């Protein structure tokens, strides 16, 4: 029920947006979020964007996975 997916916003029309997930497009509502622009990624759940993904935080978390390791890749 709480599973939601990150999808890219490709068009905005008022409170609605078209998102693309691996080429599949869907219209969703933006009423629960603020400051979303085309090109942003949002977490989509039951037809609503719940939050905007922060690309810098995503990169920082990925870096954490790599640096935490005792294995050297």
């Amino acid at each position, binding site marked *: *029920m*709480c*599973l*939601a*997916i*990150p999808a*890219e916003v490709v068009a905005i029309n008022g409170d609605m947006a078209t998102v693309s*997930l*691996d080429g599949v497009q869907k219209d969703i*509502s933006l*009423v*629960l*979020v*603020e400051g979303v622009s085309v090109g942003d*990624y949002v*977490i989509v*759940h*039951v*037809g*609503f964007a*719940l*939050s905007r*993904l*922060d*690309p810098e*935080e*995503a990169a*920082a*978390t*990925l870096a*954490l*996975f*790599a640096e*935490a*390791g*005792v*294995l050297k*890749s």
Partner: protein
Amino acid sequence: MKYIDEFRQKPLGKNLAASIADAVEKGRHYRFMEFCGGHTHAIFRYGVQDLLPPEVEMVHGPGCPVCVLPISRIDQAVALAEMEGIILCTYADMLRVPGSGRVSLSKARAAGADVRMVYSTQDALQIARDNPDRQTVFFAIGFETTTPPTAVAIQQASQEGLRNFSVFCNHVLTPAAIRSILDTPDAVPLDGFVGPAHVSTVIGTKAYECFAADFHKPVVIAGFEPLDIMQAILMLVRQTNEGRHEVENEYARAVIRDGNIKAQELMAEVFELRPSFEWRGLGAVADSALSIREEYADFDAEKRFDVELRPAKEIRGCECGAILRGQKKPLDCKLFGTICTPDNPMGSCMVSAEGSCAAYYSYGRFRGAE
């Protein structure tokens, strides 16, 4: 896919597995609860448990809204669906959960009731607009992720004067469930929690600070991808080793401390706390669910229709209750994999895509353990 594939990379998973194995103190047992069914499924789907050292045990929590809804509420939904002139809309998982006498919404539909599966509250509103001569009831379930979309629908119906739309509200609250698990007298001893991903986008990390402060339990909010979960486990092991109990946020790409204020305000406008709500497994939990405020009473299906809440019995032998409290595992249930399977579920934990029993069964990992 961006923001998904990167968080499933195998080399990084091996790296994290080695880090966790290196971090655990030998001879110490770590028991962490992943609250969300979404985490339980990711753990089984990607075999995270097999990548953890034997010192780390994951206990599955009650974060599956379909699982925790008591049979009596399902019976109410079935009774609503069977009323003349009603269209009952709900999310897919709800259709197959057996109620009393093993009657699910799906069976009610086969017997002639108009039960429709919707993806969004917006679909339910559209069904109401398209069928002005009939009553459309949205059977609303879920934690804080599905609650704001229900609030939006109720406000839209109010603004449009959509008099044939109403909501049978069963929204429940995550922090109340965590508190209930920690307060259970014979609770399974836990060293910390992997905290919800998407619920936390709405309520923020601050909602868990009381558990760190009052119960001295570390909480690490984690995304639903396998590397997110492994990183969170590593952070929990480190907190446990160092005797810390803080709220940490592994899912910083989507979650902030305050959460989604706009969504929180909307929920507060439309809903208020129920003094008590019955949960499957947890029993009656104070202040753990939401009902529709008086201002929107016209859209409250419990006020519009006369559907009595009757006590209902659990299916005999079903261990869903103890499994939801983390006290038993699916393999401890005699019905598991024998008469209870995803094709023919007896208990709610086998129905939902987020239920522990469905996770054990679907990915077949229990077979190797026997």
